[in-house]
């Protein structure tokens, strides 16, 4: 019964779901959960979407695991044509609690009432600030050493590093006008001691990158190399 002009059912595709999951990041590593290989399975059946996530270890921290499952579900529900979305965390010490609570639409605080004193927004913000520093350091490195301290956003080339940095500035609500300085702290304030700031930013980058390498390696050891997709290393 096809009638022109009425919405056609079953237009939602697995590709669309994958594309939207690509925008969901591991907050600790500032990288897409699809690139990291964490999305194991996507099934679309009519307007129902079922996704399975698996992580590098059985002991990945429950709060970050929660954020990935909840963010994935929220991203899928925002897709047009989605009726129900279920995101299942597997092979994890808190798999049952997280899966059940997220898909019932409960908050972290409700789900772990006995173990939590609040939601996860502070945690998320802390890690966005780290990601900000890392992205800033990467863009400065990509320009060669030493980058001039009075660099403004309009001086940045149109490279992936620069785009990533501009994106997180916008996300954090910082000044994105062409004349805004490149080197600021995560609140957008001018930095007094640029050298000390950059030393710290480099340390944060090395920590994040070595942690990413460890997580990728653990994931490979757990599930086999062929499972991890994408990524640069």
């Amino acid at each position, binding site marked *: 019964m096809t009638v022109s002009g009425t919405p056609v059912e079953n237009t939602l595709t697995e590709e669309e779901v994958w594309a939207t999951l690509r925008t969901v990041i591991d907050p600790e590593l500032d990288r897409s959960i699809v690139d990291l290989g964490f999305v194991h399975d996507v099934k679309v059946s009519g307007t129902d979407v079922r996704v399975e996530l698996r992580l590098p270890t059985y*002991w990945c*921290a429950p709060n970050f695991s929660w954020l990935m499952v909840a963010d994935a579900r929220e991203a899928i529900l925002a897709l047009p044509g989605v009726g129900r979305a279920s995101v299942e965390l597997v092979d994890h010490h808190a798999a049952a609690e997280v899966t059940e609570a997220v898909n019932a639409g409960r908050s972290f605080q409700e789900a772990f009432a006995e173990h939590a004193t*609040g939601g996860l927004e502070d945690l998320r913000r802390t890690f966005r600030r780290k990601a900000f520093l890392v992205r800033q350091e990467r863009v400065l490195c990509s320009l060669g050493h030493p980058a001039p301290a009075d660099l403004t956003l309009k001086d940045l080339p149109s490279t992936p590093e620069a785009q990533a940095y501009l994106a997180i500035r916008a996300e954090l609500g910082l000044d994105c006008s062409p004349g805004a300085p490149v080197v600021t702290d995560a609140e957008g304030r001018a930095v007094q001691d640029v050298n000390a700031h950059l030393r710290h930013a480099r340390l944060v980058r*090395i920590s994040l990158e070595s942690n990413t390498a460890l997580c990728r*390696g653990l994931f490979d*050891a757990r599930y086999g190399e062929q499972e991890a997709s994408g990524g640069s290393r």
Partner: protein
Amino acid sequence: MYTKGGRSIFIVDGHVHFWDGSPANQLNRNGDGWIRCFYDYHKNLSPQEYVWPLELYQKYPEERMMRDLFEEGYVDVAIFLPTNLKDFYKKGFNTIEQDGVLKEKHPDKFILNGSFDPRDEAEGLKKFEQEVRRYNVKGVKLYTAEWKGSSKGWKLTDPWARRYLDRCVELGVLNIHVHAGPTIWPLNKDAFDVAPVDEVATAYRDAGLRFIVEHCGLPRIEDFCWIAVQEPNVYAGLAVVMPFIHARPRYFAEVMAELLWWVGEDRLLFASDYALWSPKWIIDKFMAFEIPADLKEQVGVNLTLEGKRKILGLNAAKLYNIQVPVTA
């Protein structure tokens, strides 16, 4: 002793286990999840020829440990750091009693550390004192993510933790090894955050406590370095970082360069985390390692033979009053 080209280097392995993660000892699926997680760390970072079968890894005989550490692994003295996990394993995972068996057979080869859990309150304090006296304990391993009943962890700054630390000072247990895991109370905070170490390191500096942060706070090396810069009684245990030297050599070099700059060669302690990894290949590769030229210039550090000597043994020897032979 590591000997090459007429040079002898005294080796203290700052973190070893004699664990039982076998199915027979597992209490629940968390016990299985724990040892499999360890095994993935082992497989991920070890050279192929050093990867064990899972069954051996779950539970290894003491002869194997003695050979890997002291015959083939160059180790002169190894430091046991117990990890109890009584909620995951029937007899515990790596307890002071298990380690104590080897310590009593080979008193000169091992240093036996204890542990405490502030949630055991007054009763635990009594038991802790008995252990300290029985085994002449000079250090403790604290695993703040340990599960206990419905609790998923504790904090170094908890009132009862402070009482245990006070007692450590009185008993001369001065080396406090801290290991942050994936859970803690409250769960909404970053469990790996080493900020509580900052607070207790300041509070107990004058009393003489030293805080050795295991795997230098990884995955939060940046937070760790920030604290270590300000607190002279904070040290970096290099477990987990060392084996990067094989599988991820560039990251190893970058992390080591940063640690040398922020923390310095006097406060870095070698550790294999045996049986997570075997000391032999780590030490071989570390002795052959040099900070790459670009990092030397960018970070402004170098790693000399003298620095390696400190990291591989002399720093730990100072903390534990280990007699170093004059030939080393």
